[in-house]
């Protein structure tokens, strides 16, 4: 009896998750082009924030909806009826929901395992500093941020030979920006967020945009709008691109977007010395008001027993 009760609960949660996630995912995919048109005119930090919010939003909100609505309503109103049947459409949706979550988990676990292995292989010892030289030149690219919770910048000895002190400082500052904004952790959350359907990377464009704008944001942090730093970082990028292309591709590297386009965009941007403008007050208001309204409506509706009961009846109808 407990087993059937739990199985029904699992089916309900998975199917609800899939449906809510699908609806929110479609909304997010529709909203994204509207936002991305304004990305060029706003600071890259904001563009990356919007991209990652739209990417993670559907997964976070669907999980919240299942945990705060579906689960409590079922536990509160569902009796232990062992004979209750489950309709096949909800079974199919639950299967897809479970599969997309499992795939996301496997993807994230695999990336964590690879990242940990890489971190162990290049880290010589516990180092209090935020960067250190690696002994193995081939383990990672010339300069990279490795680790999730306490990321460190790993530098190949070759970098110190190739770059001037000014260029090296600019590259270190760039990686520090990734460190301060916890970009490796954000990558993990992106991997943990399921796709709309199994085996289809529906949100890839958002991930690409986040990746690109987080790089530009790190460039801005490293240069701070100063010409000498901009030139130094641009020179370092070209030197490292020449240096790295002679090496074999490192582990965990994936071609998320054309490397040449990224490099060209970044160098041209660094040389323009354009001071980024803040997003318009209207857009800022829109960005902040959305999550605030959602939290407020949740806080008002959730304690209401009729609302939870209504959700239960809706789920019951869906389950059968």
């Amino acid at each position: 009896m407990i087993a059937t009760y739990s199985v029904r609960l699992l089916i309900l949660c998975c199917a609800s998750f899939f449906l809510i996630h699908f609806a929110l995912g479609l909304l997010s995919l529709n909203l994204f082009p509207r936002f991305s048109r304004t990305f060029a005119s706003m600071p890259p930090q904001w563009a990356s924030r919007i991209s990652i919010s739209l990417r993670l939003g559907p997964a976070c909100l669907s999980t919240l909806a299942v945990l705060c609505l579906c689960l409590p309503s079922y536990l509160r109103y569902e009796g232990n009826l062992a004979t209750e049947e489950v309709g096949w459409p909800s079974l199919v949706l639950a299967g897809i929901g479970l599969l997309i979550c499992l795939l996301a988990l496997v993807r994230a676990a695999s990336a964590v395992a690879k990242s940990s292995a890489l971190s162990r292989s290049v880290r010589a010892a516990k180092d209090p500093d935020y960067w250190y030289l690696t002994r193995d030149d081939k383990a990672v690219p010339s300069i990279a941020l490795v680790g999730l919770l306490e990321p460190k910048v790993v530098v190949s000895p070759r970098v110190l030979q190739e770059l001037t002190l000014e260029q090296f400082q600019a590259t270190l500052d760039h990686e520090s920006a990734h460190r301060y904004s916890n970009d490796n952790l954000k990558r993990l959350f992106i991997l943990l967020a399921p796709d709309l359907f199994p085996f289809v990377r529906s949100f890839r464009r958002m991930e690409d945009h986040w990746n690109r704008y987080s790089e530009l944001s790190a460039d801005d942090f490293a240069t701070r709008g100063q010409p000498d730093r901009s030139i130094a970082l641009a020179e370092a990028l070209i030197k490292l691109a020449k240096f790295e292309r002679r090496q074999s591709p490192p582990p965990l590297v994936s071609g998320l977007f054309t490397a040449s386009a990224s490099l060209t965009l970044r160098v041209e941007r660094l040389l323009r010395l354009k001071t980024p403008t803040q997003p318009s007050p209207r857009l800022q208001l829109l960005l902040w008001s959305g999550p605030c309204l959602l939290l407020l409506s949740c806080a008002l509706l959730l304690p209401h027993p009729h609302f939870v009961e209504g959700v239960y009846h809706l789920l019951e109808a869906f389950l059968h």
Partner: protein
Amino acid sequence: MTEPRRSRNPFKLLLLGSLEREVMTLVSQTGGGTVRDICSSLSRPLAYTTVMTTLDRLFKKDLLVRQKDGRCFRYAPRSAVSVDPGKAFSSSDRLSNTPPIPLVSYLLDAVGTYDEALLQELEKTIAARRRQFEREGKL
């Protein structure tokens, strides 16, 4: 001598961006040329490096062929490919077979794919900008 084909994904032929479509149409109409030729034939002013990157991308997608002409490449349409750029899909996010995002941040992405000519061109641009900043007393 024409370089060997690189791209192995046939779907990439259909995934063109707006600039790629524009450049592809121009190359199909004019029969191709160097990056500078194509830059000057475009209806709107675009940076040399932007056009170079676009052409390189089209070459990697197997839509163009290129031959070394002195220090630069001469691009031409691949006659065997009959893709109508106007009908090509613009969204590149529909099909994906890339591995997941790594949990490591790199200064440069996807190493090993930079074009020598592109790097030389960027290096020249940086050197020119450095000289300009030095003249202006910014450095």
